[in-house]
């Protein structure tokens, strides 16, 4: 059960957000907040990511993309919905093309509310996600071990 929570790599996807939350997400990486001190890396590649950071609501066009990005990420993985639009659909909730928050398409673990979510809130959400990531990893390890023992018997 190695300590893997020291190395959370993020995948940031902008759903149909107004870009307010996206700018705050990038702000979390600037020298003022410096998320890299927790080992956070913002990668653009789902195959290398551990935490899926999604901003903006889900609409008819991006639903398939969000689902595919989630499926391309190797287990264990955690999803964080940043901003009120990603949580519930927010101000766009009643629009004809909006299906709702990110949880209409993929299982969301952490909700970070706010319009726009503040960098402090985003970092707090990511830190909580990291704890969950460690927990999932331990469960994943236990499962793999159990399978191996089962096969040996």
């Amino acid at each position, binding site marked *: 059960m190695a300590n*893997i929570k020291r190395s959370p790599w993020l995948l940031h996807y902008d759903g149909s957000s107004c870009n307010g939350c996206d700018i705050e997400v990038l702000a979390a990486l600037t020298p003022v907040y410096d998320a*890299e*001190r927790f*080992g956070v890396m*913002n990668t*653009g590649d789902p195959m*290398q990511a551990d935490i899926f950071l999604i901003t903006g609501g889900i609409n008819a066009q991006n639903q398939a993309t969000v689902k595919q990005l989630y499926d391309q990420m*190797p287990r*264990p993985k955690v999803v964080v919905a940043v901003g009120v639009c990603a949580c519930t659909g927010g101000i766009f909730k009643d629009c004809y093309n909006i299906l709702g928050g990110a949880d209409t398409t993929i299982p969301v673990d952490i909700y970070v509310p706010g319009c726009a979510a503040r960098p402090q809130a985003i970092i707090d959400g990511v830190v909580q996600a990291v704890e969950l990531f460690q927990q999932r990893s331990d469960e994943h390890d236990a499962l793999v071990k159990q399978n191996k023992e089962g096969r040996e018997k």
Partner: protein
Amino acid sequence: MTVQVFARVLAYILLAPLVGGLLEGIDRKLSARMQRRVGPPLLQPFYDVIKLFKKQTIAVSTAQSFLLMTYLVMIILTGAMYYGGSDILMCFFVMSTGATFLYFAAIVTSSPYATVGANRELLQMVSYEPAVLLACVGFYLVEGTFSVSEIASSRYSAIMYLPGFFVAFVYILTIKMRKSPFDTSTSHHMHQEIVKGLTTEMGSKNLALFQVTEWYENVFLMGVIGLFIKNSSPISTVAAILVILVVYFLEILIDNSSARVKTDMMIKTSWGVTILCAGVNLLVLMLVR
């Protein structure tokens, strides 16, 4: 003598990942300080690799693992031959063969981003290969041998005769280490126009293999820098380590203070520097002798 060689090879195989990982940790910390950030812990690269090994393996092509493993073995072989004091020309040939496996590991996935990255990796090889081969020729002209152990135990440091070759080698080191402005095939920094280029389709275990191979390769390349300084006196070992650290710092500084260039610019400048520095040095060596 053979026991000594065996010990050196074993030390390289066991210690190179540790040294390489630490060097990368220093790199990331220094880069962060240059950008006025706190930066990750020194051991961050090790945390990353351990995590990558523990994640679920998703491979687009099953051949990729095998190709990356071959790349790793080839680079270990290169370093082991080098630190064992074997033929330097042979070391570079084995290294180039290994690099070809990396190209195949990226291109088997047929992902557009990985393919563009792989093609750029080939262009990078085209850019650095002349300077690397000329460095071998330079060592031969000065010392009369390709043997690393004999070059390292000569009376005078090779850099006294080969300053131009040294400059050309440091220039192409930026390409070889995939540092900005020549990080065209894949980048250590977060985003680039072709996602992660060469490593786009490498996840979890495969990416960890790639990273460990890079550590082995960096330790080998730093060793070649040291060979320019090393001579028969023991003090030169200290000088070599100092020069290696200075060159490594220079690479980090260049990485943080320059923007990525296009590949044709990379080929033009690297060949230009190679012909100007190493070529003129070669002419002088051949005329004076």
